[in-house]
């Protein structure tokens, strides 16, 4: 925690996680943070709802025929802030809304839920970590979550009675990570998100950030040479999302094994936190092994540099 990550390495999009672990000592004492910003709220026509997750503040107004959503960001990707979804006594923001959703008659309940990233996230530890031969280490990497806005809609199917269903109308990034390319060359590969992380090894050191989900990442080095963990691709669409009893968001764990013959295998490991609640299923219904084959195993590796 005492690291000064900006002293090493080049310029980065975001401040690394260490930089905002603790509030400055002279900061005024604030009430303890309630990290659960998601939930559902029912509101009357003309009322405004607001919530905050990290740098993102979202306001939504229910009107007779449309829902209007304003999304604003303030601060960097590691801003620690949360405000629970609730009706606020304030007028709708001036200026054009970020998004509008039209209905015959607007639903009165807005559901907001966290979701993991929709692409693979390439995590770069701020300080590279070397895993000696035969060792196993568990790192904690946090990645920003998306805020899924959902409404109840009635869907009529032929020959059946209309069913009420919860439909996602949009997803807003709480802190949009930068794009990156993961592949053997510039002709083939996959567009991913890049996230810089402190990659802490002690859970107690990991700060609680309401808009980021922690992924426990186990790196096993069975080869005869040390393994330098320079960047790790986390298959976020294959992981489920949980919340523990402290309100911290967790994803399933990921296990990387560098085998004696230098092959690397990767596998998501179902890992709900103790006393945790499952908030979202993996985005893709396919299992990791079914979807990916050899190409994927080549992409998802811990760089040995």
């Amino acid at each position: 925690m005492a690291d000064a990550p900006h002293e090493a390495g080049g310029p980065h999009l975001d401040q690394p996680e260490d930089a905002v672990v603790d509030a400055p000592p002279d900061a005024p004492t604030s009430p303890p943070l309630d990290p659960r910003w998601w939930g559902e709220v029912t509101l009357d026509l003309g009322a405004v709802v607001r919530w905050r997750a990290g740098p993102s503040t979202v306001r939504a107004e229910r009107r007779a025929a449309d829902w209007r959503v304003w999304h604003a960001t303030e601060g960097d990707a590691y801003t620690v802030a949360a405000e629970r979804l609730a009706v606020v006594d304030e007028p709708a923001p001036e200026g054009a809304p970020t998004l509008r959703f039209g209905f015959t008659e607007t639903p009165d309940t807005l559901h907001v839920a966290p979701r993991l990233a929709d692409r693979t996230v390439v995590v770069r530890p701020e300080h590279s970590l070397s895993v000696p031969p035969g060792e196993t280490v568990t790192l904690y990497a946090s990645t920003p979550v998306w805020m899924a806005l959902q409404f109840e809609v009635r869907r009529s199917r032929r020959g059946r009675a209309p069913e009420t269903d919860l439909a996602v109308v949009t997803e807003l990034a709480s802190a949009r990570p930068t794009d990156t390319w993961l592949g053997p060359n510039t002709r083939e590969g996959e567009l991913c998100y890049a996230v810089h992380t402190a990659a802490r090894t002690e859970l107690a050191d990991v700060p609680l950030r309401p808009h980021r989900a922690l992924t426990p990442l186990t790196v096993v080095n069975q080869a005869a040479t040390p393994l330098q963990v320079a960047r790790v691709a986390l298959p976020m669409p294959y992981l489920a999302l949980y919340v523990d009893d402290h309100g911290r968001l967790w994803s399933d764990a990921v296990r990387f094994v560098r085998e004696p013959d230098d092959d690397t295998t990767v596998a998501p490991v179902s890992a709900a936190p103790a006393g945790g609640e499952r908030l979202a299923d993996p985005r893709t219904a396919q299992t990791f092994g079914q979807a990916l084959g050899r190409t994927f195993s080549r992409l998802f590796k811990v760089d040995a540099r």
Partner: protein
Amino acid sequence: MTTTDPGLETFAFLAALADPSLWWAVARAAAYLIAGGLLSRVVRFGVQRALAHLEPGQRVLLARIASYAVLVLFVISALRQFGFDFTVLLGAAGIVTVAVGFASQTSASNLISGLFLILERAVQPGDVVTVGGRTGEVISVDLLSTKLRTFDNLLVRIPNETMVKSEIVSLNRFPIRRVDITVGVAYDSDLGLVQKTLLDVAHRNPLGLDEPAPLLIANGFGASSVDYMLAVWAKSENFLTLRNALTREIKEAFDAAGIEIPFPQTTLQPGAVPLTVKVVGAEPEPGPAAGPTTGGAPS
């Protein structure tokens, strides 16, 4: 002189019609044509299905060639039933080929070029290409020409021969592209700060890829500025958005950091004779050129 009796001619014609061998020949020819039509259709579908791994353009072309070949064979067989001798026709065909060849030199060249274009898969519908200075989306690659839709919505028909001879630059064949932005800074700038500012801008924009990493290249000392090129990778679809955003963000970051982007400058060296420079404008200049309204004196 012999004259033919029309009555006799009619009789001969009717006698020929009554000859069962003629009807037999017609029936066989018709059978050949029907069988040929059916078989060519079967061949077309069969080839299309067998070559499912090829591009649609290639598949259609090969299927069409195969089905026409089958049809031509059956038509020739049908004609043979009436006693047509194709050895004579083949001899004539050589001469005709030379004549037609000369007449349709351009079309034939385009046709052959079109075949090569389709088989080589140099361009495909949907590609965004620059050919001979024109950039547009490929709508179709036909046998004689390739059609482009330019971004101002014009249809450009490029003969395939030109396509084969020209350099074709495909702008969206690969999933990612590099945005290159050149910028010059004043000679009195802190170059360390300039480099840091440029790379910060590149890292801050979420559309710029983190990897391949942004590249900063010093292009040398220019006439009026120290020139840099900032190269940032982006997904091909985001190319223009990123280029516009980076240009604005670089200007804003330079303004905030007090870095100047200089105009072209010229330094005058007076040589042996000292050059006297006088600042004019503080006081009205006397003389005939100064009109009554040019003075700055308060009224």
